[in-house]
């Protein structure tokens, strides 16, 4: 194998791929990246057996070949090289790098040892704008669970319902649902949270169409020169729709920035109390008060004006409320609930495509 690539391209590819390679895995070769010539391009891949990421970059291929080399080392190494042309030459299992005044050799392992990366033969396919995907993913994945004891909840659920594509995540304490776009496909994809996090990183500096190909077991996201394959989580996603309240006794339309601010302040006093803050709504003087107590340190009451219907109070985890407010768009926000024990909901009055449900804390 003998090729020439630019440092910028190689560095960028390693940046999106190397993170997937993990030295914690039992199989040592999974800490390596696979470098392979594909026609006139060079592919760089890594996998942790849950997901696999491949980045293609343009290169001048003099002779073909492939090798795997340690991901961490090569990433750190290439990122510190000066920009310009790097020449890679494979000599048995040693990969020689030369650029400018640098001459380095990295010992590799045969690419024969590297796992076969899955491909999708006859899958279904659809496309989505990367900006839209990015926005919707950001809004939803905060609600996914990290708890492996309920594997289904560690996934982000892409599904179609009444001709719409929806993305949903829940950890059973909160739930986020975003309506993405119209679709003709009928799909149920449960994509692992780590795959969606990786996908989010990849789409964040890309503009254009993302192609999604899937079958029963796996899904492939093609984002420009990058491909991400993930296994799908098996299992049936809970019937979450029945949990979203349809009617509310109490609702408050507020300025989002105001609510964010007073929630932040209140959360400071709620640290020792598992983040618990109490929101009190009063339609008489049209205000929402947030009350939090730190028994040792003191207490806090903050309030904001808004359009209020009904009255009542509810206790929430301030962290969940903050997470949701951070990802929501629009100037105004509607916060609605039904008494102390029923789920509460945040929505944007101008954009019905996103809702966020938070369960109360029992006080």
């Amino acid at each position, binding site marked *: 194998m003998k090729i020439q690539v630019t440092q910028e391209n190689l560095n960028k590819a390693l940046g999106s791929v190397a993170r997937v390679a993990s030295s914690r*895995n*039992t*199989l*040592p070769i999974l800490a390596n990246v696979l470098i392979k010539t594909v026609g006139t391009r060079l592919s760089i891949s890594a*996998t942790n*057996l*849950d997901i*696999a990421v491949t980045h293609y970059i343009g290169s001048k291929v003099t002779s073909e070949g492939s090798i795997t080399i340690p991901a961490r080392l090569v990433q750190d190494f290439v990122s510190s090289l000066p920009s310009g042309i790097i020449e890679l030459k494979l000599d048995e299992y040693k990969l020689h790098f030369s650029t400018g005044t640098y001459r380095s050799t990295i010992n590799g392992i045969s690419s024969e040892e590297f*796992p*076969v*990366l*899955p*491909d999708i033969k006859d899958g279904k396919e659809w496309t989505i704008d990367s900006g839209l995907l990015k926005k919707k993913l950001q809004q939803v994945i905060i609600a996914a669970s990290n708890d492996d004891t*309920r*594997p*289904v*909840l560690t996934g982000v659920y892409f599904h179609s319902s009444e001709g719409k594509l929806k993305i949903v995540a*829940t950890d*059973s*304490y909160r*739930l986020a649902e975003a309506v993405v776009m119209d679709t003709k496909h009928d799909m149920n994809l449960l994509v692992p949270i780590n795959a969606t996090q990786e996908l989010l990183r990849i789409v964040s500096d890309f503009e254009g169409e993302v192609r999604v190909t899937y079958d*029963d*077991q*796996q899904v492939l996201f093609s984002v420009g020169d990058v491909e991400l394959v993930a*296994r799908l989580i*098996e*299992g*049936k*996603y*809970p*019937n*979450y729709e029945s*949990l979203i309240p349809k009617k509310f006794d109490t609702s408050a339309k507020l300025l989002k920035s105001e609510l964010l601010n007073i929630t932040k302040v209140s959360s400071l006093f709620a640290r020792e109390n598992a983040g618990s803050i109490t929101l009190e709504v009063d339609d008489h003087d049209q205000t929402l008060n947030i009350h939090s107590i730190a028994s040792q340190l003191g207490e806090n009451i903050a309030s904001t004006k808004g359009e209020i219907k009904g009255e009542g109070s509810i206790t929430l*985890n301030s962290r969940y409320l903050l997470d949701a407010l951070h990802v929501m768009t629009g100037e105004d926000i509607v916060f609605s609930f039904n008494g102390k*024990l029923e*789920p509460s909901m945040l929505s944007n009055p101008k954009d019905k495509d996103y809702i966020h*449900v938070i*369960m*109360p*804390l*029992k*006080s």
Partner: protein
Amino acid sequence: MGSTIQEGILWQSVLGEIELSISRASFVTWFKNTHLIRNKNGVIIIGVPNVFIKQQLERKFNPMILETLKKNGVENVEVEYKIQALDKEKTNQKEELIILSDQSSDRPKNKVSSLSHQYRQGLNEKYTFENFIVGAGNELAYAACQAIVANPGSKYNPLFLYGGVGIGKTHLIQAVGNEILNNNPDARIVYASTEQFVQEFVDALRFKKNTDFAGFYRGADVLIVDDVQFLAGKEKIQEEFFHTFNALHQANKQIIISSDKPPREIPTLEERLRSRFVWGMSIDMQNPDFETRCAIIQTKAESHGLELTSDVTEYLANYVQTNIRELEGALNQLLAFCEMRELEPTLDVTVSLLGSGKSRPKHISPRQIIEKTAKYFQVPMEDIMGPKRDKDIVVPRQIAMYILRSELHLSFPKIARELGRKDHTTAIHSIDKIEKESVIDNGVKTAIAKIKEKLYV
């Protein structure tokens, strides 16, 4: 197809052979959760956990699998791979019915359910009577523990063991638990460090599961509580402990407690607990004497498959005089050093490794010794250095001289000068006297041990 091997066993034996021919990591990664789904009409279907493994088996390992199948008498077959989790994992796939639980009722439940741990938790099986070395300092404690194993709950209840760090309290009380469990596997043994007791108590209060907590500890046949001195100053918990103690004692259940000080010296321990601790039998575990230390070293070395010469053993026994943990540390250091350099553990090697001569800690000054001694006896330091000859001054002064000699190896004239005496014979006489008294007078002996302990903290 002349398969004589049954389906399930067939795949097991294929796996067995493959395991031998590839690396452990590869085997675990690729083959661990595979299973045979069907073997029919020349097609074998293998269940695999996910798509990555499926691809790998299809593309890389298929020839090897076919080859191995052939060895097992299965020829001319096709192997297909299908993603299907094992039955065990399938149960997870049932639809999750209840979601959006409210947080406060969900989380504490998980937390407190940890209270229903088994009744043997905390016991470490490596602590047994067989590997406990009996010497003059601990033979009484050992005998008492043996008696308890023979008749739990009837003799010496509660048993209260106290003594400095690293002299085997934990070993001994754990050995009791393990031995009782050996004799009667159904016995409910609860071994808890005081810290753990406190933590669980706090959790129980927080999640209002007090009855679970009380029920767990009061349901024990043998309650072993380590390092009880940490109860000091925690009144509410002392009260809970008091009730637990009473309930168990009433029911003739064995209670074993260890501490680093005798009950009367644990500050802010409630009187009613204090008196209960000394109710049964309280035993002072002393530092191991020279012979015991030698025996410990030899046993430990043997368990590493090494025999030490007597000069090395004696050197080590002199090197660390109080704490068995440190003694083991020194021994391990020596063994590791010898193993690495492939040396015989001779006296020269030992001395060069651990430092020469007596273990004289450079950072302790004569003044510190006198100060600690004065503090221990609660007499002013000036009095010890001064001319007074009252008995409550003379004894501390003599003990200070003894420690100066034994710890810092100062000369007699130097010792005399340090304490403001003119004549070095005074020092000789004092040290001689304390040496003799420390053998017969327990008060003197503990005083010396305590002061030494303070010095090396």
